[in-house]
């Protein structure tokens, strides 16, 4: 059994993608950003702002084990409503490491963060960090076959 009672990411099930055919990091960022844009949570400028930032200041995070993660985001002016999108990749794509940008990481979990008042929205990132610090949960998430399963693992009860 895995105890995830502490972990309640404020995510909507509609903002979760399980991708069996991700082409590359840009593809994942574009697909997640489009989802948030369709829901009116980010401006049309968000996607390119995220991608530009990712190229200059990458967001890949090396975790324990073989599954790694990335937390792409953009400046606050591109965000309308704070939210988070999650892509679970059946096959890894390469993101560069945040602290060592020359290093390639095989990423299977991408949390796209849309924040407009980060100091108030610190909970979102704290929850993401708690997920990433739980290797068994990372493993289970990366193997999830449905968005419902993902919500059961990490979702907030009242956000569906």
């Amino acid at each position, binding site marked *: 059994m895995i105890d995830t009672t502490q972990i309640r990411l404020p995510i909507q099930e509609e903002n979760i993608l399980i991708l069996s055919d991700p082409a590359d990091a840009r593809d994942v960022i574009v697909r997640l950003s489009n989802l948030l844009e369709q829901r009116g949570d980010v401006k049309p400028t968000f996607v390119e702002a995220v991608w530009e930032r990712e190229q200059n*200041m990458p967001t890949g*995070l*090396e975790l324990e084990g073989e599954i790694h993660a990335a937390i792409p*985001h953009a400046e606050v002016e591109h965000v309308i409503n704070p939210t988070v999108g999650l892509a679970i990749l059946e096959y890894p794509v390469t993101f560069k490491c945040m*602290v060592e940008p020359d290093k390639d990481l095989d990423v299977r979990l991408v949390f796209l963060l849309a924040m407009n008042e980060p100091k108030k929205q610190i909970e979102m990132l*704290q929850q993401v960090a708690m997920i990433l*610090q739980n290797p068994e949960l990372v493993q289970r998430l990366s193997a999830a076959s449905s968005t419902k399963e993902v919500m059961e693992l990490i979702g907030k009860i009242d956000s569906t």
Partner: protein
Amino acid sequence: MNQQRVKRILVACGTAIATSTLVAVQIREEMEKRGIKVETRQCKATEVPSYAQDVDLIVSTTPVPTDLGKPVIQTLAFLTGLGKEEVLNQIEKALKEE
């Protein structure tokens, strides 16, 4: 007997939006547990040189210049948990040596 001076830590990340806030909160909590008073200030990685003079230590999640005359710790431990205890020890040591 001497009153311990509040140590100042500059916390930097790519855009000073997300990760530096998370890092700053954890450093304040953990140093308080260790009996060290700290103040944190957040900035973008590119702003580090202009703020470095006013602080005792720089902690960054993204590459920053290391020749600013202040100790620099570059780490993702506050996000990934990997090596966190070790980094906290490094921070404590850097503040005590200051």
